[in-house]
């Protein structure tokens, strides 16, 4: 048994001459909430459709829940998967409960499960209203409820907060964050906003133009947020010798009276500050210029530095 609920190897999908997804090696650990992030048109929806067998890959392979996804076992894997792709599908002339009955029927799940999922998404009071009269947020929650029917081990949610107001986003976020605990499911969730997911995911994959730019833990991504070190000195000219001795003469630059150094480990920085003080540079301030996750995301997806990033 592998540690991953989802694994893809060299996965690609080409429409005509346009590669929507190329060489994708996705690894979604069991029990994780994996944020699949990328700008619009990055290939997130295409990837999710490939995982569900809604579209056929041009190349590569997919493993879901420890099994190779093939036409022969697709239905078996789908029965263990819940999904919400783009916007939820629903029948507007029927009530929320009737919509869920249809999905429960198709999934072969117990009708009693409907009450559970309605409760999970807090739709019980509106279960007997026609979906055509639901608000956008209620429809999104109904879509999640449909995905949750049948106790899936894997949830694939494509931009479930799309079109929601801030309160709706907050509510949806809280709902998704508790899925692994409430249902024991691995969650793969996409968004074009990293900030929207950073509170609920523990793993992240950043996709742009069909390629994976970063994949790993959220903590790992936050490591990349360590930015330049800014030193404010009373006597900047006295810093030359200690910086050269530390091997930073080429990397350091002076801007607006501050010395800017590349990201440094803390112990190394402490030693350097000691040397600078001993050399009479007069250290009056040390600041880490941390990049926000959003800045990292932008630097990755706009072809920026992305140092040390896959």
């Amino acid at each position, binding site marked *: 048994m592998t540690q991953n609920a989802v694994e893809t190897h060299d996965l690609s999908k080409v429409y005509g001459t346009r590669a929507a997804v190329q060489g994708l090696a996705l690894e979604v650990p069991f029990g994780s909430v994996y944020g699949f992030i990328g700008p619009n048109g990055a290939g997130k929806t295409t990837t999710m*459709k490939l995982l*569900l067998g*809604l*579209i*056929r890959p041009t190349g590569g392979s997919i493993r879901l829940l420890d099994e190779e996804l093939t036409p022969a076992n697709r*239905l*078996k894997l*789908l*029965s263990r*998967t819940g*999904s919400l*792709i*783009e*916007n*939820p*599908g*629903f*029948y*507007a*002339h*029927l009530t929320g409960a*009737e919509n869920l*009955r*249809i*999905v429960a*029927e*198709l*999934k*072969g799940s117990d009708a009693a499960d409907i009450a559970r999922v309605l409760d999970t998404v807090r739709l019980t009071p509106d279960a007997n209203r026609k979906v055509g009269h639901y608000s956008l947020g209620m429809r999104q929650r109904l879509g999640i409820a*449909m995905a949750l029917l049948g106790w899936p081990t894997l949830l694939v949610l494509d931009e479930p907060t799309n079109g929601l107001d801030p309160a709706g986003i907050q509510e949806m976020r809280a709902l998704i964050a508790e899925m692994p605990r409430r249902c024991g499911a691995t969650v793969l969730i996409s968004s074009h906003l990293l900030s929207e997911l950073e509170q609920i995911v523990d793993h992240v994959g950043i996709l742009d133009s069909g390629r994976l730019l970063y994949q790993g833990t959220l903590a790992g991504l936050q490591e990349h947020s360590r930015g330049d070190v800014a030193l404010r000195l009373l006597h900047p000219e006295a810093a030359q010798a200690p910086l050269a001795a530390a091997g930073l003469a080429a990397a350091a630059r002076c801007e607006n009276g501050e010395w800017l150094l590349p990201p440094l480990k803390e112990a190394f920085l402490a030693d350097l500050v000691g040397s600078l003080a001993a050399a009479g540079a007069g250290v009056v301030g040390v600041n880490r210029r941390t990049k926000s996750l959003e800045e990292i995301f932008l630097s990755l997806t706009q072809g920026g530095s992305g140092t040390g990033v896959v």
Partner: protein
Amino acid sequence: MVLKAFRRSVRAENKKLRGGGVWAVFLLIPLLSAAYGTFSFCYNSAAVTQDWAGLWGQHTLYYALFFFAPMAAIYAAWLWRLEHLGHNWALVMGMPVPRPCLFAAKLAAAFRLVLLTQGWMWLLFFGCGKLWARLPGTPPPACLLWALRGALAAVPMLALQLLFSMLCRSFVPPVLLALLGGVAGFLFVSKGWGLYWPYGLPALGMNANQGRDMLGGQALPFAAACLGFTLLFTAAAALLLQKWDVRG
């Protein structure tokens, strides 16, 4: 397993029918057709024998010529429209049921609608005969059999219409095709080629515009034509669905 999935899909389709606008079509079209047929029967007393067989001929003439095929097409278009709207394609194709089952279940649901419609049509025929045309006695039992046979003969046409509506997101073009198909069906039947045209089979099955059984000894070729066309169109739809990339 496939049979179980098919049953689940049929139950799901039947649930989708609840409260849908398709029931207005179910009620109104046979009503309109019955009014036309009875009016024609009463005001053509010189040309039409004034008995139950004559009334059946007039009822089914208008019903099979103008109403039946477009009505079946509306049923089929409505059933697929449910999936064409919003993101329902991704929803249904992501369900753990074989894709051909989705089509077969829609065919079963459409057949159920047509079967109920035939019952309603027969009730209207009986009601119009007794209350409007004031015919004595009761209709010959064969009329009930012909109504049932019309429903069975509709299956290949439903399969073809479901195929059209699966491929065409618009509601109207498949219905127009059915109208043309139904009119052409009458021409095929009048030339004796009704068995070779899916839209001609319901007219043959119902003995449209006839007081006698048109099929005579052709029950087996009729059943074979119904089965053959149904299998052909269902297989085509199943093949397309298997290769389908869900875009919407």
